[in-house]
């Protein structure tokens, strides 16, 4: 069964990266195993990807964090506080997603 991952964007006023291109590439790398849910969900996501265009990451707020149990935060050319070049962002995030779910104990899944 395909796992659902949440996706939230910042408002895009200062994009250091092409956010939509990154997401399209990420979707290609995750095809078949994962689906990205854009917008709100009635249930909390196990994992969410916060796509912020710059290091300010202004969308990283408590009300956003409450939408998922865990988050991977892309903030410009940074993933979870680590510098990553733009052309490697999708590869790195896809790997993090797969490692997250592989590391989950099946009994912990809600």
């Amino acid at each position, binding site marked *: 069964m395909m796992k659902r991952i949440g996706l939230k*964007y910042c408002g895009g*006023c*200062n994009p250091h990266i092409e956010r939509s291109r990154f997401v399209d590439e990420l979707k290609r790398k995750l095809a078949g195993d994962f689906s990205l849910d854009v917008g709100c969900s009635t249930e909390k996501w196990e994992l969410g990807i916060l796509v912020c265009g710059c290091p300010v990451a*202004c*969308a990283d707020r408590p*009300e956003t964090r409450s939408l998922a149990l865990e988050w991977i935060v892309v903030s410009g050319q940074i993933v979870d506080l680590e510098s990553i070049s733009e052309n490697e962002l999708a590869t790195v995030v896809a790997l993090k997603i797969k490692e997250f779910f592989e590391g989950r104990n099946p009994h912990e899944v809600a």
Partner: protein
Amino acid sequence: MPLMTGEQYEESLRKLNMKVYLLGEIVKNPVDHPIIRPSMNSVKLTYSLAQDPQYEDLMTATSHLTGNRVNRFCHLHRSTGDLVSKVKMQRLLGQKSGACFQRCVGMDAINAVDSVTFEMDRKLGTKYHERFNKFLLMMQEQDLTVDGAMTDPKGDRGLPPHKQADPDLFVRIAQRKSDGIIVRGAKAHQTGAINSHWILVMPTMTMAKEDADYAVSFVAPADAAGISYIYGRQSCDTRKLEGSPIDVGNRQYGGHEALMVFDDVFIPWENVLMAGEYEFSGPLVERFAGYHRQSYGGCKVGVGDVLIGAAALAADYNGAMKASHIKDKLIEMMHLNETLYACGIACSAEGNKTASGNYLINMLLANVCKQNVTRFPYEIARLAEDIAGGLMVTMASEKDLKHPEIGKVVEKYFRGVASVPTEHRMRILRLIENITLGTAAVGYRTESMHGAGSPQAQRIMISRQGNLEQKKNLAKELAGIKE
């Protein structure tokens, strides 16, 4: 979710029955009029971007009234985060439109009216805040564009309203009835009036007791009986009628202002938000002006981003990009632009909660923001024109470029670097012309000067808010002066 699409917004305007004059004629269909249409597109953008997940975090907010997602232009700021998001949203819209997108005036008006009506009711026992909340709920549920109307024509600036030769030079209560008021007068420079569903009128300045009838605030449908509009001319406006989109510069977006005339307009009491409570006219004007001065730290910065990009492209197309003075001019443009943004962010981050629960910007910093906005876009525009070169204002028209015979001549002699099509060079120069001298210069330059209050108005506020006595005490302390 009560968010209109851009198309729904456009259709909603078609249902209005506004009385609009432009170039001496009544406009039967403002939505499709070629001079007005670009300004409608700019407001439409505020709707369509709110539907896009890539922008909804800035374009939308959660209503404190209903918990629903609403367009941020219909939202009351409930935190300093909201104030910051507002400025960022405005920067985004300035970037996407390169023009004045007009919807800010209404957002700034509702935020000012919210806290002032709350405090007015608390002191005077009036019921204005309840009426305002009903209006706000409707505004949010229907995702309305509201035009905040403040500036009166004012006539003789040396005389108060009640001493003017013509009493209608300030909007006033002409008659009070059991079911409402009759208002008479006009509001000048009304940004986006013809693209609005409703209007929210406020007094233009602090009113004294003798001018109590001029201390009036109300909401009305934009097409209410008795309201008419006279559209303001803009530099190069009739280029939009020539069928040459390249020559317009920014074909898709624009802004507008209009004179809004009230010819004995009836306002039922349920829509009246102030009717003579003159001691609250000053706070309402100050807060609206403060929010609107904050706004310019977003919108003009976004347009500035476009102008900087256009100037850099012009340098590329001219083959001049490697010149150190060109690089330095672009650096200066960015420095000035980001300074304006820094001011917008600062006055937002330093905001504070009011008694009604909504957040007010830091007034000193908002006025500093706008004072800088009265200057820096002029210098940014000057540098853009410097980089673009004189061709910007001597260039042949699109019709010459497309001419079967002389088109080749235009192509040959207006080409910059060989690899860039001449048309691209012409397009970017026309965009710079549009923002610095054309229809968008209304918003980028003169509105930067006078919008949200002319330069002296901010200097008065800076003087009031600057806390000079405290600064003197600091100096005395360090100088060892004991009194």
